[in-house]
């Protein structure tokens, strides 16, 4: 598991440039451009299970859901940040991407840190030290558990 660490106010234009928003529709194709204007090395080295750690207001700017989609399909399932932009945060929930808001841990994490996530307990263990993060609101937990909003609704509509 590798850790990609970024600063404050990473915006959706550098995560997934606007020029691709209507020309790329396949999520795996989106993944090839993830963080393109922030860190061109990201897509070259990212592997399944890697984690992104960032400063405050991660994902600010446009409402484009591809910003969450491209990160998810690049193999990242967890983003830990000091805070998230609100629409991006919603897009993470709806894409089944775990967005952990834990401001006190971010500066402690280095590229070589060992991170363990206890989802059920809303806890992070970083280099042996335990941190709690705010639980996902009960009302939306079902959405995450189902892997995102679309699968969640698929289930609902199937049941009728």
């Amino acid at each position, binding site marked *: 598991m590798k850790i990609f660490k970024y600063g404050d106010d990473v915006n959706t234009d550098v995560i997934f440039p606007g020029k691709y928003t209507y020309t790329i529709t396949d999520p795996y194709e989106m993944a090839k451009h993830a963080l393109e204007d922030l860190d061109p090395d990201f897509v070259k080295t990212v592997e399944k299970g890697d984690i992104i750690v960032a400063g405050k207001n991660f994902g600010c700017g446009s*409402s484009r859901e591809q910003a969450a989609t491209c990160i998810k399909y690049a193999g990242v399932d967890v983003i830990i940040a000091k805070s998230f932009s609100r629409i991006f945060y919603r897009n993470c929930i709806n894409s089944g991407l775990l967005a952990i808001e834990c401001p006190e841990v971010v500066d402690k994490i280095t590229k070589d840190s060992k991170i363990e996530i206890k989802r059920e307990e809303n806890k992070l263990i970083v280099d042996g030290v335990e941190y709690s993060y705010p639980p996902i*609101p009960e009302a939306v937990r079902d959405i995450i558990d189902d892997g995102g909003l*679309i699968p969640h609704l698929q289930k609902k509509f199937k049941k009728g």
Partner: protein
Amino acid sequence: MGKTFAEKILAKKAGKDSVVPGEIVVVKPDYVMSHDNSAAIYGKFKSIGAEKVYNPEQVLIVLDHCVPAANEKYATNHKTVREFVEKYGIKNFYDINTGVCHQVVIEKGYARPGRLIVGSDSHTVSYGALGAFSCGIGRSEAAAIWATGEIWLKVPQTIKVVFKGKLNENATAKDTMLYLIGKIGADGALYKSVEFTGEGVKEFSIADRIVFSNMSVEMGAKNGYFAPDEKTYEYLKSRGISEGEYDVILPDEDAEYEQVIEIDLSEIKPQVAKPHTVDNVAPVEEVKGTKIHQALIGTCTNGRIEDIRAAVKILEGRKVNPKVRLLVFPASMEVYMQALKEGLFEKILEAGGIVMNPGCGPCLGAHEGVLAPGEVCISTANRNFKGRMGCKEAFIYLASPETVAASAIKGEICSVEDLK
């Protein structure tokens, strides 16, 4: 304890007596707005397995992001949207000859006091200018509303911005909003509802208020609200919307605010947001002399008739610097027609500018004026992120229509004062 606007409207829409910040409510928005991304939303909608659109009246679509289509992909995208609209009987549809979605939603009377509107575009916050609660959502969520009619929202805490005093002649609403964003930062109002209040608000026109509401998302806000007043009612009346056709929801006087920010309008000078973040704000004075290659007037932030009039006042009788491309995008066909009737285009063309069709244009880097590496653009838009206008090695400054027009004349960033 009294309630804020956000608490009152969300309680009402959720059918509850009262709600508190942090609470999650499920609501049926009055409208769900989407644009060219409606094709992608349609794809998600189909995958959900719903047999019909829950409420076709709730769906509002405006094609504006890349109009007319720049290539086959965009064209196919538009085609898919038109097919959806036809198939499901969506009446609230505006094709590429109407304008930028947020301007259209306001002009066509969808944005009204007391309405709850969500949209799969971050600048959906614009409708707070008319006393609505409006915020951006994602594509999957828009598809979910098409299928189920509802969405969950978290009740936000509220920040109260109090405008005191009066703007100087050379300062505008845009300068004030840039100043505020610079002061509190890109996350200064994260997850929060913002209420713009104070004596100074009375002076701001509806066009001015839209600038504040539109850009409130640039400081992270969930919505940016102005309490309806005489100016609002007058505007609605001019749109054929009479009293009784909207629901005025006002915050209580003893509402609890997370924070109160006071701004003395008399201290505001012309401002710019420097590359590459909207909160990287400085007085124009500080970047005076920066050479520019392109100047853009338009977008959902500053493409209204008032903005074009203000720019033309400066352009009239002058010439755009030969090294600068001045692009003007009226925010809607209605604005376009009005500007045409007033003879404003003639003056822009005589000055050496180019008038484009209403639409988002190069604001999101899709077409119609994207930048080359090393180029500098001064724009009336709301974002200057790296790569925003199609090139990650270009530089974008944000400013008022007045400052953009003056800079286009001079060929370098300057304020109107510097032309005298």
